[in-house]
Protein backbone atom coordinates (compact mmCIF):
# COMPACT_ATOMS: atom_id res chain seq x y z
CA UNK A 1 0.00 0.00 0.00
CA UNK A 2 1.35 3.44 -0.85
CA UNK A 3 2.03 5.90 1.94
CA UNK A 4 -0.74 8.20 0.72
CA UNK A 5 -3.30 5.42 0.93
CA UNK A 6 -2.08 4.49 4.41
CA UNK A 7 -2.44 8.12 5.50
CA UNK A 8 -5.93 8.35 4.05
CA UNK A 9 -6.99 5.14 5.75
CA UNK A 10 -5.59 6.30 9.10
CA UNK A 11 -7.36 9.66 8.72
CA UNK A 12 -10.69 7.93 8.07
CA UNK A 13 -10.27 5.70 11.10
CA UNK A 14 -9.51 8.70 13.33
CA UNK A 15 -12.73 10.33 12.24
CA UNK A 16 -14.55 7.21 13.38
CA UNK A 17 -13.34 7.80 16.95
CA UNK A 18 -10.14 5.76 16.86
CA UNK A 19 -7.57 6.79 19.50
CA UNK A 20 -4.82 4.50 18.27
CA UNK A 21 -4.25 3.09 14.82
CA UNK A 22 -1.33 0.77 14.08
CA UNK A 23 -0.85 -0.14 10.46
CA UNK A 24 1.68 -2.42 8.78
CA UNK A 25 4.12 -2.35 11.67
CA UNK A 26 7.47 -4.13 11.31
CA UNK A 27 10.17 -4.47 13.96
CA UNK A 28 13.24 -6.74 13.93
CA UNK A 29 16.27 -7.19 16.16
CA UNK A 30 18.96 -8.54 13.82
CA UNK A 31 17.53 -11.70 12.30
CA UNK A 32 14.78 -11.93 14.90
CA UNK A 33 11.66 -10.59 13.20
CA UNK A 34 9.41 -9.67 16.13
CA UNK A 35 6.57 -7.80 14.43
CA UNK A 36 5.64 -8.54 10.83
CA UNK A 37 2.87 -6.44 9.28
CA UNK A 38 1.01 -5.96 12.57
CA UNK A 39 -2.27 -4.03 12.51
CA UNK A 40 -4.49 -2.84 15.34
CA UNK A 41 -7.16 -0.20 15.97
CA UNK A 42 -8.43 1.09 19.29
CA UNK A 43 -11.63 3.11 19.72
CA UNK A 44 -12.36 5.47 22.59
CA UNK A 45 -13.41 3.67 25.75
CA UNK A 46 -12.38 0.29 24.36
CA UNK A 47 -10.30 -2.19 26.33
CA UNK A 48 -8.19 -4.42 24.11
CA UNK A 49 -6.00 -7.24 25.38
CA UNK A 50 -3.06 -8.38 23.27
CA UNK A 51 -2.51 -12.02 24.10
CA UNK A 52 0.66 -13.86 23.20
CA UNK A 53 3.34 -16.20 24.46
CA UNK A 54 6.40 -14.90 26.28
CA UNK A 55 8.86 -13.46 23.78
CA UNK A 56 6.21 -13.02 21.10
CA UNK A 57 6.84 -9.27 20.88
CA UNK A 58 4.01 -7.94 23.05
CA UNK A 59 6.25 -5.66 25.10
CA UNK A 60 8.07 -4.53 21.94
CA UNK A 61 4.69 -3.52 20.53
CA UNK A 62 3.75 -1.21 23.39
CA UNK A 63 7.26 0.18 23.66
CA UNK A 64 6.92 1.15 19.97
CA UNK A 65 3.58 2.82 20.71
CA UNK A 66 5.01 5.02 23.49
CA UNK A 67 8.14 5.80 21.46
CA UNK A 68 10.67 3.90 23.58
CA UNK A 69 11.53 1.77 20.52
CA UNK A 70 11.55 2.90 16.91
CA UNK A 71 9.74 0.60 14.49
CA UNK A 72 11.50 -0.41 11.26
CA UNK A 73 8.45 0.32 9.15
CA UNK A 74 4.78 1.16 9.49
CA UNK A 75 2.61 3.79 11.13
CA UNK A 76 1.55 4.21 14.76
CA UNK A 77 -1.07 6.94 14.96
CA UNK A 78 -1.86 8.15 18.45
CA UNK A 79 -4.41 11.01 18.51
CA UNK A 80 -3.67 11.44 14.81
CA UNK A 81 0.12 11.85 15.18
CA UNK A 82 2.47 9.29 13.67
CA UNK A 83 4.78 8.47 16.60
CA UNK A 84 7.95 7.59 14.59
CA UNK A 85 7.75 10.91 12.68
CA UNK A 86 7.23 13.47 15.45
CA UNK A 87 9.91 15.40 17.34
CA UNK A 88 10.78 15.14 21.03
CA UNK A 89 8.48 17.96 22.20
CA UNK A 90 5.49 16.63 20.30
CA UNK A 91 6.23 13.16 21.66
CA UNK A 92 6.23 14.57 25.22
CA UNK A 93 2.81 16.12 24.61
CA UNK A 94 1.45 12.76 23.43
CA UNK A 95 3.09 10.97 26.36
CA UNK A 96 1.34 13.29 28.81
CA UNK A 97 -1.96 11.90 27.51
CA UNK A 98 -0.86 8.25 27.40
CA UNK A 99 -0.26 6.37 30.64
CA UNK A 100 2.13 3.43 30.77
CA UNK A 101 2.09 0.84 33.53
CA UNK A 102 5.42 -0.97 33.51
CA UNK A 103 5.72 -4.70 34.11
CA UNK A 104 8.24 -4.10 36.90
CA UNK A 105 6.26 -1.03 38.12
CA UNK A 106 9.38 1.16 37.62
CA UNK A 107 8.78 3.16 40.81
CA UNK A 108 11.73 5.41 41.61
CA UNK A 109 13.47 3.74 44.56
CA UNK A 110 15.06 6.92 45.83
CA UNK A 111 11.78 8.84 46.06
CA UNK A 112 8.78 8.59 48.38
CA UNK A 113 5.36 7.64 47.04
CA UNK A 114 4.41 11.34 46.94
CA UNK A 115 7.55 12.28 44.97
CA UNK A 116 6.94 9.36 42.61
CA UNK A 117 3.45 10.65 41.89
CA UNK A 118 4.55 14.27 41.58
CA UNK A 119 7.38 13.41 39.16
CA UNK A 120 5.30 13.13 35.92
CA UNK A 121 3.35 16.27 36.90
CA UNK A 122 6.46 18.35 37.33
CA UNK A 123 8.35 16.86 34.40
CA UNK A 124 5.62 17.51 31.87
CA UNK A 125 5.94 21.16 32.93
CA UNK A 126 2.30 21.36 33.87
CA UNK A 127 1.83 24.58 35.79
CA UNK A 128 -0.17 23.80 38.91
CA UNK A 129 -0.04 25.26 42.41
CA UNK A 130 1.24 23.07 45.27
CA UNK A 131 -2.30 22.82 46.76
CA UNK A 132 -3.58 21.50 43.46
CA UNK A 133 -0.65 19.03 43.23
CA UNK A 134 -1.44 17.72 46.72
CA UNK A 135 -5.08 17.31 45.74
CA UNK A 136 -4.14 15.41 42.58
CA UNK A 137 -1.79 13.11 44.51
CA UNK A 138 -4.52 12.48 47.08
CA UNK A 139 -7.11 11.74 44.41
CA UNK A 140 -4.84 9.33 42.53
CA UNK A 141 -4.00 7.50 45.78
CA UNK A 142 -7.68 7.38 46.77
CA UNK A 143 -8.47 5.81 43.39
CA UNK A 144 -6.13 2.90 44.19
CA UNK A 145 -7.08 2.79 47.89
CA UNK A 146 -3.62 3.57 49.28
CA UNK A 147 -3.87 7.10 50.64
CA UNK A 148 -2.00 6.15 53.83
CA UNK A 149 1.22 5.24 51.95
CA UNK A 150 1.89 8.79 50.73
CA UNK A 151 5.10 9.27 52.72
CA UNK A 152 6.42 5.71 52.45
CA UNK A 153 9.31 4.54 50.27
CA UNK A 154 8.59 1.98 47.50
CA UNK A 155 10.83 -0.58 49.27
CA UNK A 156 8.40 -0.58 52.24
CA UNK A 157 5.46 -1.67 50.08
CA UNK A 158 4.31 -5.15 49.06
CA UNK A 159 4.22 -6.25 45.40
CA UNK A 160 0.51 -5.57 45.04
CA UNK A 161 0.78 -2.16 46.70
CA UNK A 162 3.65 -1.22 44.43
CA UNK A 163 1.55 -2.12 41.40
CA UNK A 164 -1.27 0.08 42.74
CA UNK A 165 1.09 3.00 43.33
CA UNK A 166 2.49 2.57 39.82
CA UNK A 167 -1.11 2.70 38.56
CA UNK A 168 -1.75 5.83 40.65
CA UNK A 169 1.34 7.45 39.08
CA UNK A 170 -0.04 6.56 35.65
CA UNK A 171 -3.46 8.02 36.57
CA UNK A 172 -2.24 11.33 37.97
CA UNK A 173 -2.12 12.99 34.54
CA UNK A 174 -5.63 11.67 33.73
CA UNK A 175 -4.47 9.87 30.58
CA UNK A 176 -6.88 9.16 27.76
CA UNK A 177 -5.11 5.93 26.85
CA UNK A 178 -3.46 3.58 29.35
CA UNK A 179 -1.00 0.94 28.19
CA UNK A 180 -0.59 -1.95 30.63
CA UNK A 181 2.50 -4.17 30.28
CA UNK A 182 1.61 -7.51 31.89
CA UNK A 183 -0.17 -5.96 34.90
CA UNK A 184 -0.60 -9.22 36.85
CA UNK A 185 2.83 -10.81 36.29
CA UNK A 186 4.61 -11.61 39.54
CA UNK A 187 1.47 -11.22 41.70
CA UNK A 188 -0.43 -13.96 43.49
CA UNK A 189 -3.81 -14.85 41.88
CA UNK A 190 -5.85 -12.98 44.52
CA UNK A 191 -3.82 -9.76 44.30
CA UNK A 192 -3.76 -10.15 40.52
CA UNK A 193 -7.55 -10.30 40.50
CA UNK A 194 -7.76 -7.18 42.68
CA UNK A 195 -5.52 -5.30 40.24
CA UNK A 196 -7.68 -6.37 37.29
CA UNK A 197 -10.82 -5.22 39.14
CA UNK A 198 -9.12 -1.91 39.83
CA UNK A 199 -8.22 -1.55 36.15
CA UNK A 200 -11.84 -2.19 35.14
CA UNK A 201 -13.08 0.28 37.77
CA UNK A 202 -10.72 2.98 36.50
CA UNK A 203 -11.72 2.25 32.94
CA UNK A 204 -15.38 2.89 33.84
CA UNK A 205 -14.71 5.89 36.06
CA UNK A 206 -12.56 7.87 33.61
CA UNK A 207 -13.74 6.26 30.34
CA UNK A 208 -10.13 5.60 29.38
CA UNK A 209 -9.03 3.52 26.43
CA UNK A 210 -6.88 0.58 27.50
CA UNK A 211 -4.38 -1.60 25.71
CA UNK A 212 -3.40 -4.50 27.92
CA UNK A 213 -0.53 -6.86 27.19
CA UNK A 214 -1.02 -10.11 29.02
CA UNK A 215 -0.85 -13.87 29.02
CA UNK A 216 -3.03 -14.14 32.13
CA UNK A 217 -6.40 -15.59 31.03
CA UNK A 218 -8.15 -14.18 34.10
CA UNK A 219 -7.07 -10.72 33.01
CA UNK A 220 -8.19 -11.38 29.44
CA UNK A 221 -11.60 -12.59 30.60
CA UNK A 222 -12.29 -9.78 33.06
CA UNK A 223 -10.76 -6.73 31.42
CA UNK A 224 -11.26 -7.11 27.67
CA UNK A 225 -13.85 -5.89 25.19
CA UNK A 226 -11.71 -7.27 22.42
CA UNK A 227 -8.82 -9.76 22.33
CA UNK A 228 -6.02 -9.81 19.78
CA UNK A 229 -3.78 -12.85 19.56
CA UNK A 230 -0.22 -11.92 18.61
CA UNK A 231 1.46 -14.92 17.01
CA UNK A 232 4.54 -15.06 14.78
CA UNK A 233 4.65 -11.27 14.71
CA UNK A 234 1.18 -10.93 13.25
CA UNK A 235 -2.32 -10.25 14.48
CA UNK A 236 -3.28 -13.94 14.23
CA UNK A 237 -6.86 -13.74 15.50
CA UNK A 238 -9.21 -11.09 16.85
CA UNK A 239 -12.55 -11.16 18.60
CA UNK A 240 -14.24 -11.10 21.97
CA UNK A 241 -13.11 -13.51 24.68
CA UNK A 242 -16.12 -15.77 24.06
CA UNK A 243 -15.68 -15.76 20.29
CA UNK A 244 -12.03 -16.76 20.53
CA UNK A 245 -12.80 -19.42 23.13
CA UNK A 246 -15.07 -21.10 20.58
CA UNK A 247 -12.39 -20.89 17.87
CA UNK A 248 -11.25 -24.30 16.65
CA UNK A 249 -7.82 -23.32 15.38
CA UNK A 250 -5.29 -25.28 17.49
CA UNK A 251 -3.00 -22.24 17.76
CA UNK A 252 -5.83 -20.18 19.27
CA UNK A 253 -7.15 -23.06 21.33
CA UNK A 254 -3.82 -23.53 23.14
CA UNK A 255 -4.35 -20.22 24.97
CA UNK A 256 -7.72 -21.27 26.33
CA UNK A 257 -6.82 -24.78 27.51
Amino acid at each position, binding site marked *: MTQEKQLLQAGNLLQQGHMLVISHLYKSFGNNHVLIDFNLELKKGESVVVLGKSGSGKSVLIKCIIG*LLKPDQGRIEVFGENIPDINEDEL*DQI*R*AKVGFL*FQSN*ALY*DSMTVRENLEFPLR*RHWIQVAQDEVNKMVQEALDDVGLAHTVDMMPAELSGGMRKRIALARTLILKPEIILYDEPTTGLDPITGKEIIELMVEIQHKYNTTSLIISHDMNCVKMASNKVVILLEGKCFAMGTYDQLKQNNDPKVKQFFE
Partner: protein
Amino acid sequence: MPIPKTSKAFLSEAGDMARFTAKFFKQGFKPRYEVAEFMHQCFVIGYKSLPLVALTAFILGLVLTMQLRPSMVDYGVESQLPAIVGIAIVREIGPVITALIFAGKIGSSIGAELGSMRVTEQIDAMEVSGTNPFKYLVVTRVLAATLMLPVLVMLGDAISLYGSYLGVNIRATTSFNLYWTQVFDNLEFYDVVPSFLKSFFFGFAVAVVGCYKGYNSSKGTEGVGRSANSAVVVSSVMIFVIDLLAVQITDIFGFN
Protein backbone atom coordinates in the same frame (compact mmCIF):
# COMPACT_ATOMS: atom_id res chain seq x y z
CA MET B 1 45.68 -10.78 10.18
CA PRO B 2 42.34 -11.26 11.94
CA ILE B 3 41.78 -9.20 15.09
CA PRO B 4 41.56 -11.40 18.22
CA LYS B 5 38.10 -11.51 19.85
CA THR B 6 39.20 -9.89 23.11
CA SER B 7 40.87 -6.99 21.30
CA LYS B 8 37.75 -6.54 19.21
CA ALA B 9 35.57 -6.45 22.34
CA PHE B 10 37.95 -3.97 23.98
CA LEU B 11 37.96 -1.68 20.94
CA SER B 12 34.21 -1.84 20.56
CA GLU B 13 33.74 -0.98 24.26
CA ALA B 14 36.19 1.92 23.92
CA GLY B 15 34.27 3.14 20.87
CA ASP B 16 30.95 2.93 22.70
CA MET B 17 32.37 4.83 25.65
CA ALA B 18 33.74 7.54 23.33
CA ARG B 19 30.29 7.89 21.72
CA PHE B 20 28.72 8.07 25.20
CA THR B 21 31.15 10.87 26.11
CA ALA B 22 30.37 12.71 22.88
CA LYS B 23 26.66 12.42 23.71
CA PHE B 24 27.38 14.03 27.10
CA PHE B 25 28.85 17.12 25.40
CA LYS B 26 26.03 17.22 22.86
CA GLN B 27 23.25 16.92 25.43
CA GLY B 28 24.96 18.87 28.20
CA PHE B 29 24.90 22.19 26.40
CA LYS B 30 21.37 21.98 25.05
CA PRO B 31 18.56 23.42 27.20
CA ARG B 32 16.44 22.32 29.40
CA TYR B 33 19.05 22.38 32.14
CA GLU B 34 18.39 20.14 35.14
CA VAL B 35 19.65 22.66 37.70
CA ALA B 36 17.83 21.26 40.76
CA GLU B 37 19.03 17.72 40.11
CA PHE B 38 22.58 19.01 39.45
CA MET B 39 22.62 20.78 42.83
CA HIS B 40 21.28 17.64 44.50
CA GLN B 41 24.04 15.57 42.87
CA CYS B 42 26.70 18.09 44.00
CA PHE B 43 25.45 17.55 47.54
CA VAL B 44 25.42 13.74 47.23
CA ILE B 45 28.69 13.42 45.31
CA GLY B 46 30.66 16.23 46.97
CA TYR B 47 29.43 16.86 50.48
CA LYS B 48 28.63 13.25 51.35
CA SER B 49 32.08 12.07 50.22
CA LEU B 50 33.83 14.59 52.45
CA PRO B 51 34.04 12.52 55.68
CA LEU B 52 35.63 9.57 53.86
CA VAL B 53 38.05 11.77 51.94
CA ALA B 54 38.96 13.69 55.12
CA LEU B 55 39.65 10.53 57.12
CA THR B 56 41.83 8.88 54.47
CA ALA B 57 43.67 12.14 53.75
CA PHE B 58 44.41 12.72 57.44
CA ILE B 59 45.76 9.18 57.94
CA LEU B 60 47.78 9.40 54.74
CA GLY B 61 49.53 12.63 55.75
CA LEU B 62 50.29 11.32 59.22
CA VAL B 63 51.56 7.93 58.05
CA LEU B 64 53.62 9.35 55.19
CA THR B 65 55.42 11.70 57.56
CA MET B 66 56.14 8.96 60.10
CA GLN B 67 57.41 6.60 57.39
CA LEU B 68 59.67 9.22 55.82
CA ARG B 69 61.23 10.43 59.08
CA PRO B 70 63.86 7.64 59.61
CA SER B 71 65.34 8.07 56.13
CA MET B 72 65.32 11.85 56.46
CA VAL B 73 67.08 11.57 59.83
CA ASP B 74 69.69 9.23 58.26
CA TYR B 75 70.47 11.85 55.61
CA GLY B 76 70.40 14.64 58.18
CA VAL B 77 67.59 16.53 56.45
CA GLU B 78 64.89 16.05 59.04
CA SER B 79 64.10 19.76 58.88
CA GLN B 80 63.04 19.33 55.24
CA LEU B 81 60.27 16.90 56.20
CA PRO B 82 57.37 19.42 55.78
CA ALA B 83 58.68 20.50 52.39
CA ILE B 84 59.05 16.93 51.05
CA VAL B 85 55.66 15.80 52.37
CA GLY B 86 53.99 18.99 51.12
CA ILE B 87 55.27 18.51 47.58
CA ALA B 88 54.46 14.78 47.56
CA ILE B 89 50.92 15.35 48.78
CA VAL B 90 50.02 18.36 46.64
CA ARG B 91 51.61 17.14 43.41
CA GLU B 92 50.74 13.47 43.40
CA ILE B 93 49.45 11.60 46.41
CA GLY B 94 46.58 13.97 47.29
CA PRO B 95 44.90 14.05 43.87
CA VAL B 96 45.49 10.38 43.02
CA ILE B 97 44.47 8.86 46.35
CA THR B 98 41.43 11.14 46.66
CA ALA B 99 40.43 10.22 43.10
CA LEU B 100 40.82 6.50 43.86
CA ILE B 101 38.69 6.81 47.01
CA PHE B 102 36.21 8.81 44.95
CA ALA B 103 36.16 6.08 42.27
CA GLY B 104 35.47 3.47 44.96
CA LYS B 105 32.64 5.43 46.52
CA ILE B 106 31.05 7.44 43.72
CA GLY B 107 31.97 5.35 40.65
CA SER B 108 30.48 2.19 42.15
CA SER B 109 27.39 3.93 43.50
CA ILE B 110 26.65 5.61 40.15
CA GLY B 111 27.21 2.28 38.34
CA ALA B 112 24.92 0.39 40.71
CA GLU B 113 22.24 3.09 40.90
CA LEU B 114 21.92 3.63 37.15
CA GLY B 115 22.27 -0.11 36.53
CA SER B 116 19.38 -0.97 38.82
CA MET B 117 17.32 1.87 37.34
CA ARG B 118 17.96 0.43 33.89
CA VAL B 119 17.00 -3.16 34.73
CA THR B 120 13.87 -2.14 36.67
CA GLU B 121 12.71 0.07 33.77
CA GLN B 122 12.99 3.28 35.84
CA ILE B 123 14.99 4.93 33.05
CA ASP B 124 12.21 4.08 30.55
CA ALA B 125 9.64 5.39 33.05
CA MET B 126 11.50 8.72 33.17
CA GLU B 127 11.47 8.97 29.42
CA VAL B 128 7.74 8.31 29.35
CA SER B 129 7.27 11.02 32.03
CA GLY B 130 8.63 13.70 29.70
CA THR B 131 12.19 13.63 31.03
CA ASN B 132 15.32 13.11 28.99
CA PRO B 133 16.95 10.46 31.23
CA PHE B 134 20.40 11.09 29.76
CA LYS B 135 20.26 14.73 30.84
CA TYR B 136 18.57 14.07 34.16
CA LEU B 137 20.81 11.17 35.23
CA VAL B 138 24.07 11.31 33.25
CA VAL B 139 24.75 14.99 32.53
CA THR B 140 24.01 16.08 36.11
CA ARG B 141 26.19 13.37 37.67
CA VAL B 142 29.14 13.88 35.34
CA LEU B 143 29.09 17.66 35.81
CA ALA B 144 28.74 17.34 39.59
CA ALA B 145 31.61 14.85 39.84
CA THR B 146 33.84 16.95 37.55
CA LEU B 147 33.33 20.03 39.70
CA MET B 148 33.27 18.38 43.12
CA LEU B 149 36.42 16.23 42.92
CA PRO B 150 38.84 19.21 42.62
CA VAL B 151 37.19 20.74 45.69
CA LEU B 152 37.56 17.46 47.57
CA VAL B 153 41.20 17.22 46.45
CA MET B 154 41.97 20.70 47.79
CA LEU B 155 40.27 19.99 51.10
CA GLY B 156 41.94 16.56 51.22
CA ASP B 157 45.38 18.13 50.63
CA ALA B 158 44.84 20.59 53.47
CA ILE B 159 43.67 17.88 55.89
CA SER B 160 46.52 15.61 54.80
CA LEU B 161 49.06 18.36 55.52
CA TYR B 162 47.49 18.90 58.93
CA GLY B 163 47.92 15.15 59.58
CA SER B 164 51.52 15.52 58.51
CA TYR B 165 51.96 18.45 60.97
CA LEU B 166 50.81 16.15 63.79
CA GLY B 167 53.17 13.45 62.45
CA VAL B 168 56.12 15.82 62.59
CA ASN B 169 55.22 16.72 66.18
CA ILE B 170 55.19 13.13 67.40
CA ARG B 171 59.00 12.98 67.54
CA ALA B 172 59.96 16.64 67.34
CA THR B 173 58.48 19.99 68.17
CA THR B 174 57.61 22.29 65.33
CA SER B 175 55.32 25.26 65.65
CA PHE B 176 52.21 25.43 63.51
CA ASN B 177 53.48 28.62 61.80
CA LEU B 178 56.92 27.21 61.06
CA TYR B 179 55.45 24.00 59.62
CA TRP B 180 53.12 25.83 57.21
CA THR B 181 55.79 28.38 56.27
CA GLN B 182 58.11 25.54 55.31
CA VAL B 183 55.38 23.81 53.27
CA PHE B 184 54.38 26.93 51.34
CA ASP B 185 57.95 28.17 50.85
CA ASN B 186 58.64 25.06 48.84
CA LEU B 187 55.38 24.90 46.90
CA GLU B 188 55.44 26.63 43.52
CA PHE B 189 52.62 27.71 41.29
CA TYR B 190 53.69 24.89 38.95
CA ASP B 191 53.20 22.34 41.72
CA VAL B 192 49.65 23.36 42.54
CA VAL B 193 47.97 24.25 39.24
CA PRO B 194 48.66 21.11 37.13
CA SER B 195 47.61 18.84 39.99
CA PHE B 196 44.44 20.89 40.50
CA LEU B 197 43.65 20.75 36.78
CA LYS B 198 44.17 17.02 36.48
CA SER B 199 41.66 16.38 39.26
CA PHE B 200 38.89 17.79 36.98
CA PHE B 201 39.77 15.05 34.50
CA PHE B 202 39.84 12.41 37.26
CA GLY B 203 36.32 13.42 38.36
CA PHE B 204 35.07 13.46 34.78
CA ALA B 205 36.53 10.01 34.06
CA VAL B 206 35.08 8.43 37.22
CA ALA B 207 31.56 9.73 36.52
CA VAL B 208 31.57 9.02 32.77
CA VAL B 209 32.72 5.42 33.33
CA GLY B 210 30.22 4.88 36.18
CA CYS B 211 27.35 6.35 34.14
CA TYR B 212 28.32 4.43 31.00
CA LYS B 213 28.50 1.11 32.84
CA GLY B 214 25.24 1.69 34.72
CA TYR B 215 23.28 3.21 31.83
CA ASN B 216 24.12 0.26 29.58
CA SER B 217 23.58 -2.38 32.23
CA SER B 218 21.77 -5.57 31.25
CA LYS B 219 21.10 -9.11 32.37
CA GLY B 220 19.21 -8.31 35.57
CA THR B 221 20.71 -8.06 39.01
CA GLU B 222 23.89 -9.87 37.98
CA GLY B 223 24.46 -7.14 35.41
CA VAL B 224 24.03 -4.45 38.08
CA GLY B 225 26.78 -6.01 40.21
CA ARG B 226 29.03 -6.28 37.21
CA SER B 227 28.37 -2.63 36.27
CA ALA B 228 29.30 -1.41 39.75
CA ASN B 229 32.42 -3.55 39.82
CA SER B 230 33.71 -2.69 36.37
CA ALA B 231 32.93 1.01 36.96
CA VAL B 232 35.45 1.00 39.84
CA VAL B 233 38.07 -1.09 38.03
CA VAL B 234 37.97 0.85 34.75
CA SER B 235 37.85 4.28 36.39
CA SER B 236 40.77 3.41 38.70
CA VAL B 237 42.87 2.41 35.69
CA MET B 238 41.75 5.57 33.88
CA ILE B 239 42.94 7.67 36.83
CA PHE B 240 46.47 6.27 36.48
CA VAL B 241 46.42 6.67 32.69
CA ILE B 242 45.31 10.32 33.01
CA ASP B 243 47.99 10.83 35.68
CA LEU B 244 50.60 9.47 33.29
CA LEU B 245 49.42 11.72 30.48
CA ALA B 246 49.26 14.74 32.81
CA VAL B 247 52.86 14.32 33.95
CA GLN B 248 54.04 13.98 30.33
CA ILE B 249 52.18 17.12 29.30
CA THR B 250 53.46 19.19 32.24
CA ASP B 251 56.95 17.90 31.44
CA ILE B 252 56.70 18.96 27.80
CA PHE B 253 55.64 22.46 28.87
CA GLY B 254 58.52 22.59 31.35
CA PHE B 255 56.35 22.72 34.47
CA ASN B 256 58.24 19.92 36.21
